């Protein structure tokens, strides 16, 4: 099993009365809440944390893209990834990802990802999300009715820009470019860097991932219990399409808080978890469903699903737990796994096997968790949990992992020595 260390980069100083005084953490969050000098420290802490995780042997460090968002300070994850490319050596760099329809022309993504791949010696995982409604339709003004088609076309363009050897003209419905010929080109050119698709639970996305042989990632903040139905749906669909159950076809996001005792874990992680599920997910409902963002097929299955659930009176417990903001419900709902290393080992193995997910993306920093606490959580997990879960899925080959240059061929990055530079 691959254990990947994911950072959302949340602004850590939203006021306690945030939810009362402000309608939304996203789209129209007020600028007065943002202190750039505090953000200077946050960014530097966050990047330290990512580098620390790489040092401790996590298989990958992961970054993602959000706009006008109080819990995601990375409008450009590529900036962070390029810095990580220099400050890490063997860790995969998972950019999860670039929302393709937001780039004009989309070849910008092909170029920047190729740069990261070159700088890092071929360690890039290229994530291509459609992007949330808040990011794409509201913060970036994209038309919800055109978004998916633009996304799919941009994907075709980026992939062709990576793989086509000669300069070509791209005559798309939304993008027209006479001369497409990106420089640089990715190191991973057989045929291109691994492509991973974070998505909701739509059958169209599952089918597309299967057809293109991409990794499907379900990046929910609500943990493995809520994610079970989606992942079961994914695997059922794979079976229908004649695909094997290789767990590396899938990625899943899970919050974790590990400590010496369960009580200590509760003591440590309650505040950051409640900060995240309370303040960071305080999104105004008016930004949730721009018309056209959800395809009609998905609407149809959603409405049918709701009716079936209502008919079965499925699980009132899950329903109540959804959107929980207090630690007891957060833990009971499985949003955050907490406990001693051994308890977490057991839970991670359960998550891996029940969801059949080979790429586990861990959120070990969340909400207003301090750097010290993040490092503690990260180290304890690396030392006491990781060794006892790594063996999972050893019988499967991960065909979707980066293939970097051989270690001996890669550039030696000199250590950063600012004191010396100052003395010179």
């Amino acid at each position: 099993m691959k254990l990947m260390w994911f950072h959302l980069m949340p602004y850590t100083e939203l006021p306690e009365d945030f939810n009362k005084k402000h309608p939304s953490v996203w789209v129209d969050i007020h600028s007065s809440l943002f202190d750039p000098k505090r953000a200077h420290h946050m960014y530097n802490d966050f990047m330290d944390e990512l580098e620390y995780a790489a040092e401790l042997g996590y298989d990958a460090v992961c970054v993602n893209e959000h706009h006008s968002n109080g819990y995601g300070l990375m409008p450009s994850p590529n900036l962070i990834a390029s810095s990580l490319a220099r400050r890490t050596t063997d860790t995969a760099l998972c950019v999860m990802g670039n929302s393709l329809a937001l780039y004009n022309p989309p070849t910008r993504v092909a170029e920047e990802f190729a740069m990261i791949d070159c700088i890092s010696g071929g360690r890039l995982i290229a994530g291509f999300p459609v992007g949330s409604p808040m990011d794409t339709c509201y913060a970036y003004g994209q038309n919800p009715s055109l978004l998916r088609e633009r996304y799919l076309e941009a994907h075709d363009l980026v992939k062709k820009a990576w793989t086509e050897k000669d300069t070509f003209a791209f005559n798309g419905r939304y993008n027209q470019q006479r001369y497409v010929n990106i420089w640089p080109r990715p190191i991973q050119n057989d045929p291109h860097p691994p492509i991973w698709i974070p998505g909701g639970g739509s059958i169209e996305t599952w089918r597309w991932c299967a057809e293109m042989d991409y990794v499907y990632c379900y990046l929910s903040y609500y943990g493995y219990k809520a994610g079970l139905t989606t992942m079961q749906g994914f695997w059922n669909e794979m079976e229908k399409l004649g695909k094997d159950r290789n767990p590396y076809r899938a990625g899943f996001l899970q919050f974790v808080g590990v400590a010496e005792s369960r009580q200590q874990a509760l003591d440590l992680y309650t505040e950051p978890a409640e900060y995240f599920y309370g303040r960071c997910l305080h999104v105004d409902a008016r930004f949730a469903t721009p018309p056209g963002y959800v395809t009609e097929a998905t609407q149809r299955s959603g409405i049918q699903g709701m009716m079936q659930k209502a008919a079965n009176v499925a699980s009132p417990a899950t329903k109540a737990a959804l959107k929980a903001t207090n630690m007891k419900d957060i833990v009971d709902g499985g949003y955050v796994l907490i406990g001693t290393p051994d308890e977490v080992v057991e839970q991670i193995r359960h998550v891996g096997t029940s969801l059949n997910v080979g790429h586990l993306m861990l959120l070990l920093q969340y909400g207003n968790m301090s750097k010290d606490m993040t490092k503690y959580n990260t180290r304890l997990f690396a030392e006491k949990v990781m060794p006892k879960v790594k063996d999972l899925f050893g019988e499967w080959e991960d065909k979707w992992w980066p293939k970097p240059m051989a270690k001996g061929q890669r550039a030696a990055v000199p250590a950063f020595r600012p004191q010396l530079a100052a003395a010179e």
Partner: protein
Amino acid sequence: MSDPKTTTVDVNGFPCRVWTKGQGPKLGFLAGLGGLPRWLPFLDRLAEKRTVIVPSLPGYPGATGHTELDTHLDWVLAVRQLIDKAGLAGADLVGASVGGAFAAEMAAIFPGHVRRLALISPFGLFDDDAPAADPWAQRKDAVPGLMCADGEKWNALMAPPEGANSIEWPIEMTRAAEAAARAFWPLGNTGLEKRLGLIAASTLILWGERDAVLPPSYARKFAAGINGKSRVEVIAGAGHLAYLDQPDAVAGAVLGHFG
């Protein structure tokens, strides 16, 4: 209230419903946000004096094909086909809200196609000094009050009729919102301001005095931009979809203008 006659015309290979009712000279109506999931008292009032012809724009209830329309030119040409195929070329034309923007385009770009024009709170402009509300970023419970002075009028428009398919009905309502968004996202500004000067038809501009989507000040911008004779009339007790709030007053004003 007898039912209108329903026919279907083809636009870009997709069906669009056309309702017809009444007698006398033809009068076309292009509906506003939400389209026409059902026939309205407003249309009955018009049908007392005129042959009322009501084509559904692509993607609105009774019609599909919005997914083929990528640019404003695509939309304008689709509406032109719809007008032609519904037999409305050269007739009087009423357009409201999103349909109002297209009615104005018809009069501007194809002046021979529109005899007289009536616009009810048309889309198409955006005023930085009086920003329009965002109809596509609203909490569900805020929508009725945004669309109508009396939110119940909107709820009645949207309510599934007896026997409606409980899965397809809400999808159809969302599709209408998507079609509007596809043509007018994000600000409702289609650059119509540049073409208002081409409108030579005599134009009545109606505005609900309590329009919560487009401030009534937009009426003056339309009147100032239109080249032909134009007159503004504010409808008391009406919101954005004034024909739902005050069907009699709006129909009366329209019929008065068309003569």
